């Protein structure tokens, strides 16, 4: 399978990239790791006339801390994310999630920016970003702006990104030390997207859950921030009843597609199982 023809550009800075995107308008597409876009181009589900390859832009690389926030450059690959000691210490759910994405070769190419900007409900990082209340830094012809991960996803492959904009980095307020976390993903095999998956970040304070944040992958048109399910946990000891309430509230907001991963009911059922396991795992990891 050979994609359609296009012209190739490799800008060296964000401003050059924005210039190219402005020049070619809706016929241009950014390529980062290419591991979602190239398969879509092979299938002619994407037919850009211009590809703007951002791999040489230094501003988009690396992981750093900035005024207490973790800032992850859009070009950080899943492999780099797994290797980052800073992230392993401050925000280990990212490593746990990245390890469940595809295989070593795909993780070497795929970037975090591409994963969250792509808008495929099967991508794993968007729900994690919603659970972490991350914000996305966006640069465009009219300057820079920020959009919360919880407000970013509008429909499948439709996000708050406008033509000509680049997602430059992801900003996460590091969860409190001792927080509990888990990303639980059911997939049929390595290299498959989730049948259903759940991300949980929570804090415990003398046996009581003092904050909780839950989001779901691939059981709707977009990643789903599960506000009611999160709320059902706060103020409880994360006992069986509380977990049952959260599972029910999470299942309530799912609307998965019936596909080769199973019929709707099955995928909703699996989402419930993932939520339960994620809460239990997060609880066991929380200290205090």
């Amino acid at each position, binding site marked *: *399978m*050979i*994609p*359609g*023809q*296009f*012209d*190739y550009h*490799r800008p060296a800075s964000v401003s050059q990239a924005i210039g190219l995107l402005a020049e070619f308008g809706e016929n241009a597409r950014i*390529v980062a790791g*290419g*591991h979602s876009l*190239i*398969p879509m*181009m*092979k299938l002619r589900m994407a037919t850009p006339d211009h*590809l703007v*390859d951002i*791999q040489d832009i230094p501003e988009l690389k690396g992981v750093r801390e900035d005024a207490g926030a973790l800032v992850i450059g859009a070009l950080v690959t899943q*492999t780099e994310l797994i290797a980052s000691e800073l992230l392993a210490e401050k925000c280990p759910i990212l490593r746990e999630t990245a390890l469940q994405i*595809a*295989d*070593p*070769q*795909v993780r*070497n*190419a795929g970037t975090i920016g591409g994963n969250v900007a792509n808008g495929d409900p099967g991508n794993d990082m968007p729900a994690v970003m919603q659970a972490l209340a991350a914000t996305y830094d966006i640069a465009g012809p009219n300057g820079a702006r920020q959009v919360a991960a919880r407000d970013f996803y509008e429909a499948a492959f439709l996000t708050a990104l406008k033509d000509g904009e680049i997602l430059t980095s992801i900003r996460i307020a590091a969860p409190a030390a001792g927080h509990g976390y888990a990303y639980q993903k059911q997939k049929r095999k*390595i*290299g498959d997207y989730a049948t259903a998956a759940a991300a949980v970040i929570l804090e415990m304070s003398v046996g009581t859950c003092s904050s909780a944040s839950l989001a779901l992958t691939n059981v709707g048109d977009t990643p789903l921030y599960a506000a009611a399910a999160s709320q059902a946990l706060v103020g409880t000891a994360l006992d069986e009843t509380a977990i049952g309430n959260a599972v029910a509230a999470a299942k309530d907001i799912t609307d998965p597609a019936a596909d080769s991963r199973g019929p709707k009911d099955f995928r909703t059922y699996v989402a419930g199982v993932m939520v339960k396991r994620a809460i239990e795992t997060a609880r066991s990891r929380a200290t205090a």
Partner: protein
Amino acid sequence: MGKTHVKLTVNGREVEGLAEPRTLLIHFLRDELELTGPHIGCDTSHCGACTVDLNGKSIKSCTIFAVQASGAEITTIEGISGADGTLHALQDAFKEHHGLQCGFCTPGMITRAYRLLQDNPNPSEEEIRFGISGNLCRCTGYQNIVKAIQTAARELSAPKEAAE
């Protein structure tokens, strides 16, 4: 939509050529450079038969355009044996342990295992299985591939015998 200039270092040799931007690296390697070791198994980024080493990382060459790789250093299965044709320890071990049957997955499998052992010279069985999880084999059932990689790991990390 003209052709673009592509410059690579492949198996230690600098090569240049013209390619349409849409030319995938696997096609550039196989059709332009006549390096037919890397195979096309699935063309959908799943099987790993097209695996090559790019700037010290394993990648699937069916899912990157040759122009994106321009400037990179690439190693294919052809660059893994010695210049005089001596087999690499991995190639030897695959042969000894029946790590291949039809051989279609083998170039990708060995190229991937080569990088795995550079990154982790003493992997556990589990680490080997996780490390080659992007490479599918329809014949062997993996058991002998894992054995071969374990043998090569031991071979490569054994202190070289002191030359008299």
